[in-house]
């Protein structure tokens, strides 16, 4: 696998290059001119790249260590909300400390790590499906708490006025913002991808695989299974928290509507469809699911029936996809047939 190793390192450097390019465009007077009609492509690319960060972490959890995390969106949300609470200046409703944006990024990641550690400690020693219960529940509860604590979080509306560093540097030009955001996020995704493949390609990754296959044997071989699981869980949570802070600072706001269980469902479908445990494949799977979502959005004009029925129809499509993948293609399209995907316990 030495050839693969070299290419992994290169992906990391490509990522660094993209980040530098994005910064160079932002700091120079150059204004990238993008046709207006293609702007929506860039907007979807931003969503895809942010979800890409999420799915890499989720795949580290489930695909590599076998941790059934069905509340990944909670780390994304915790990162976003922490960043917003730390950085928003004089909000109309809710609390904002008005600190500089790097503090928001750091605080968001830290908060996601703390939540990940709490959930991990309480469930990673139990049967695998209990982790799914607790993570799914925590995502639901987070939304409920955020909506209830209106005085702090702004309730249903959320918090407005999160600093947007890219927007500020770009002088508010929408096409510069979109182009540089996409470049920056693509660069960060490449760096995270390189780091994760480096991790999973190392002896550490082999231990995770072993835990997924049989954690008693792994324990008997002297590996501290619980601490491997907990650390892996925290890594994925930290990446998701980081993605959350980026999301808040791209949109300039946080709101409970961004962080629903739908995010988790989309990630899981993307991961299972492609083949859990394959870092490159899950990014492809996510692309497929995103294309389906964008595609069904365009059906709106021809859909007979009320708006809520169309919304219901799109959710049903997602549910059917999830059920069908588990039943008919549990190892995924690009998955390792020997590992048999979801069926192995």
């Amino acid at each position: 696998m030495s050839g693969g190793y070299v290419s992994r390192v290169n992906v990391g450097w490509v990522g660094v290059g993209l980040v530098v390019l994005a910064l160079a465009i932002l700091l120079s007077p150059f204004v990238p001119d993008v046709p207006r009609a293609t702007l929506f492509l860039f907007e979807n690319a931003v969503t895809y790249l942010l979800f890409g960060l999420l799915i890499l972490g989720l795949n580290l959890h489930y695909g590599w260590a076998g941790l059934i995390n069905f509340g990944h969106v909670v780390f994304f949300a915790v990162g976003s909300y922490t960043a917003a609470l730390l950085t928003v200046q004089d909000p109309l409703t809710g609390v904002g400390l008005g600190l500089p944006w790097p503090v928001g990024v750091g605080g968001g990641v830290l908060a996601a790590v703390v939540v990940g550690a709490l959930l991990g400690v309480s469930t990673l020693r139990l049967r695998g499906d209990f982790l799914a219960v607790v993570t799914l529940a925590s995502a639901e509860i987070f939304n409920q708490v955020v909506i209830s604590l209106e005085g702090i979080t702004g309730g249903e509306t959320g918090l407005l006025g999160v600093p947007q560093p890219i927007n500020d540097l770009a002088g508010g030009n929408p096409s510069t913002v979109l182009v540089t955001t996409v470049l920056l996020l693509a660069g960060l995704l490449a760096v995270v991808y390189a780091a994760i493949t480096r991790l999973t390609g190392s002896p550490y990754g082999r231990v995770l695989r072993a835990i997924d296959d049989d954690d008693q044997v792994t324990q008997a071989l002297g590996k501290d299974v619980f601490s491997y699981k907990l650390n892996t869980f925290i890594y994925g949570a930290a990446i998701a928290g980081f993605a959350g802070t980026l999301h808040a600072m791209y949109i300039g706001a946080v709101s409970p509507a961004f962080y629903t269980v739908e995010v988790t469902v989309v990630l899981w479908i993307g991961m299972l469809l492609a083949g859990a445990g394959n870092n490159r494949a899950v990014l492809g799977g996510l692309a497929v699911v995103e294309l389906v979502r964008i595609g069904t959005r365009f059906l709106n004009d021809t859909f007979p029936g009320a708006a809520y029925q169309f919304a219901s129809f799109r959710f049903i499509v997602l549910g059917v996809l999830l059920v069908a993948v588990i039943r008919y293609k549990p190892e995924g399209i690009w998955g390792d047939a020997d590992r048999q995907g979801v069926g192995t316990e």
Partner: protein
Amino acid sequence: MGLAQNVVFGLVTGSYIAVAAVGFTLIYGINDMINFAYGEYMTIGAYVGLLVGFFLPAGPVVSILLVIAVSAVAGWLVARVFFIPIKDTGPVPLLLTSIGVGYILRYLIQGIAGPDLRFFEFQQSQTFRTEALGGVFVNTNQLTIIGIAVLVFGVTHLLLTRTDVGLAMRALSKNNDLARVSGVPIDNIQRYVWLLASGLAGLSGYLIGIQRAASPFMGFNQILIVLTAAILGGAGSAYGAIAGSYIIGVVMATSVGVLPSWATELSTAVAFAVLIVVLLVRPGGIASAEVREA
């Protein structure tokens, strides 16, 4: 409102949660499955109740029996299509599939019935009030719900202890392999469990509908509480689930009395906090079920 009043509310909540939790825990015990679509099984019961009330205005007894019967068959059909074909793949695919099925059912119901709340015309409610214990009131609907729940526990207890099917269910729940080699007809028993659990879920949804209203997300809003009650009681234990439900019900209701006003919407969060504490301190719950990794 006084503590006593909140305890009354807690007993009502505990009653419909317990009816559902018994079914949930039976499915867990026998199919080794955490069924996240179970909340939608409850929603189905409420909407069946609405349809029954609309098309055949029968008395409450007939309505309730119809709700149980139709929900039982509907739930079993869902299981027949989605869960039974993959029942040998282990708990994880079943759990993930149930999340997808819950999604499908939830939005199917919303697509057909619309997102609005729908109210029941049950019996005329009459309120009893006492000034003892600082003023407590209870109405006939609440008493009906508690009464039905107690009746359900009695029938379920007799079913599990006095009938062959019930004995086989308990045997399967306790030791699947031993039951299998002893000649328990597993497929039949699993079908009965699905029917029984779905009927209980439907009844629970109907009771919630009487107490409040029916909406597409009503079951989903309850599933975490039902699940917490079942785990608190010891996953797989029907009696534990009943005890767990009343504990959760009373804790949620009294916490509303104690918490400041902005936090009164957080009763599910309170249930969740209970769940985390239970998992940390005593993951086997009241009945000490085995949930650590084998």
